[in-house]
């Protein structure tokens, strides 16, 4: 090996080991910061860790949303139509949060099986179903057409009812 090649070899070895360290650290940071998704069935079966940040998702159960009138505390139930999880949240819910719609909740599970949410995610579009929720529902035995039916049969959201006449059904 010529000295020049030797030098180049060292440079390459150095770069490779640096890259390895960087990737290792990154994967470590990834492991510490990923949130796993759990469906209500999995939570009821005790698969989800207690008091660690998780993501859970399902449909907001009809009639389950109750607000404390004096504060911004709110409670609701998410369901995959098999099991249910009670969720506590304090704050402002997203615009598209409604009963009978799919949501994803980020928070921690307490001993008694309640989920204390730091974040409630609805979607940006009223026809959108979070993919995790869609799959959780399918795992629970509901095909996408089933929940579409459930969702559509749910009375058109109270205040929007009077305008639904102008909504054009043909274009959907």
């Amino acid at each position, binding site marked *: 090996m010529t000295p020049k090649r030797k030098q180049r070899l060292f440079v390459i070895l150095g770069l490779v080991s640096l890259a390895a360290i*960087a*990737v290792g*650290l*990154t*994967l470590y*940071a*990834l492991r*510490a*910061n*990923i*949130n*796993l*998704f759990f469906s209500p069935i999995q939570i009821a079966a005790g698969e989800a860790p207690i008091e660690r*940040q998780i*993501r859970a998702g399902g449909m907001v159960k009809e009639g389950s949303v109750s*607000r404390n*009138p*004096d*504060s*911004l505390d709110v409670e609701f139930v998410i369901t995959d139509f098999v099991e249910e999880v009670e969720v506590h949240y304090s*704050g*402002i*819910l997203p*615009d*598209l949060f409604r009963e009978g719609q799919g949501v994803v909740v*980020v928070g921690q599970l307490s001993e008694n099986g309640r989920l204390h949410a730091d974040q409630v995610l609805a*979607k*940006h*579009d*009223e026809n*959108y179903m*979070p*993919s*995790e929720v869609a*799959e959780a529902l399918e795992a629970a035995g509901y095909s996408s057409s089933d929940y579409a039916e459930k969702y559509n049969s749910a009375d*058109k*959201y109270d*205040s*929007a009812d009077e*305008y*639904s006449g*102008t*909504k*054009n059904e*043909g*274009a*959907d």
Partner: protein
Amino acid sequence: MLTKMIPEIGHFALVIALLMAFFQAVMPLAGAATRRPLWMAFARPMAAGQFLFVAVAYLCLTTSYMLDDFSVATVANNSNSMLPWYYKFSAVWGNHEGSVLLWSLILAGWTFAVSRFSRNLPEDMISRVLGVMGMVSSGFLLFVLVTSNPFERLLPVIPQDGADLNPLLQDFGLIIHPPMLYMGYVGFSVVFAFAIAALLGGRLDAAWTRWARPWTNIAWAFLTVGIALGSWWAYYELGWGGWWFWDPVENASLLPWLAGTALLHSLAVTEKRGSFKSWTVLLAILTFSLSLLGTFLVRSGVLTSVHAFANDPSRGLFILALLGVTVGLSLLVFALRAPRVSHTVAFSWVSRDALLLVNNILLVIMTVTVLLGTVYPLLLDALGLGKISVGPPYFNALFVPLTVILCVFMGLGPSARWKHMSARELFRRLGLASLAALIIGMFVPLAYGGEWNLWVSLGLVAALWIVLPMVRDLFEKIRRAGSLGDGLRKLSLAYWGMVLGHLGVAVTIIGVAVVSNYNVERNVRLAPGDSVQVAGYTFTMNELQSRRGPNYLSDMAFIEVSRDGSSRSFTMVPEKRLYIARGMPMTQVALRPGLFRDLYVAMGEDLGDGAWAMRIQYKPFVRWLWLGALLMAAGGVMAVIDRRYRLKRHQQVPLPASSTREVPV
């Protein structure tokens, strides 16, 4: 009669454009390989023709929106007769089909611009450049025609009215954010084409970097503005007051930006010093590949977000194939053509060359970390290993320290000399400035409300570390020139561009540090007559009103705001809108912007009895984020205006035979 045929005319124009793109790809490349001037001469006319016909197609689609032609599926799904005309205009790219057509239009536009403004380039070079761009164009036009035809008709049952544009997209931000972003994304195809052309022609010298640099700068400036606009749009439109979410779609735009930033600097080294040649080519390929990856992530429907309109798997597969072919082919060309024995240009470890090398390595590491965090969940999901999400803590944990390290080197770079300088000399130049940065950065936050915060201090030190050495350098240059006027005249625009760009980074860093740490947010219940104090301001709800907009109904709250101890007050009017066609509610934020603070009021939910949940925020220095981005972009553009890029005859730098190989393809 003719107006009824507009969508068909558009469709037909698109087919012709595809054919022209195909010829633009094949003929000049073959011509350059076999040295046939006639074949090479296809390049410019085909580029012009392709641009013309894509533009015609685009115009036809826009006309269909303007005329409310709901027999066209995309119009029916994304527009409405009640929509104001300017939103009909922007609704064209507010959906999957239209936005890929816009992508193609912008690509054709860049191609046309290259063919117009590169009159001085050798004929075989320009043929290859346009040929490569023609290949990319063909791929995308084929994608539009095969999987995402925007002119598809809903016949014979034509809807009475359209389903309306997603209300989130009915906003000034949407009118300008996507075109800007696409100009950036697609603009990187030019430097990519130059790099591939240089590889094919065996002309891997400094000359191609000089030709490619202005294009790269402009694309980078567009991308910078596009990202900033996206952040600004999310800030006021989503109603949360966040300005960066580490959302995969945001990351998709950040990735090419980071790689593009590395590319800008590496191009500078290659042009000035002739080193880093292969590295620059590789970065050019990487940057455009990341642009394509971004397009794939956003357009394929693997992500669900406001940007992801499509959920048709064949589309995702098509873009993935396009991405694979582009990356595979270009890396193959690179492997076959990269100079085997590139002559080494020596530089010592204390020099601008070395510092720029470190800058490049850091930027690439940042790119990789963001890429990993973005793609890892998708990979796991694709492999059936579970659904996870990587949250902002991951990105912050890696990105913030890396940015700080980058800043350390950014402070050193501009003051360092090319090739070699002694460490002592560098210290002499920087010692005072860096000491000042440390002291000011540590103590200024104390003056701000008396609350010392480590992160704000760190941010300020980093920003001053960047700015103060540049100021010192400027003084030094002026002093040496004798008089102020002489000194300023002597400085090139390229130099000012660098100063402005780095200043922009510093300004953005200050904005990020301050707003992240001194932000005040309160969610409160407010009824008419109630008031609340947030960060030294009193917010009083006076009354609630309802009104009707062109395509929505709205609840408005009139909130009187006064600064404590001041008698002057102003009114902020946040709204909650219900868009009629979709029955979709939307928060319209009330903003009181200022250079040093924003007041931000958003209506949450109706709590009954006339009370509303309100999100009230005090956001200091938030404008600096976007101001910094604008400065960066201005810097990028200014560097292009520099005289040396407009010289009539580009001088070709003769280089050692080892790196310039004339190889027939």
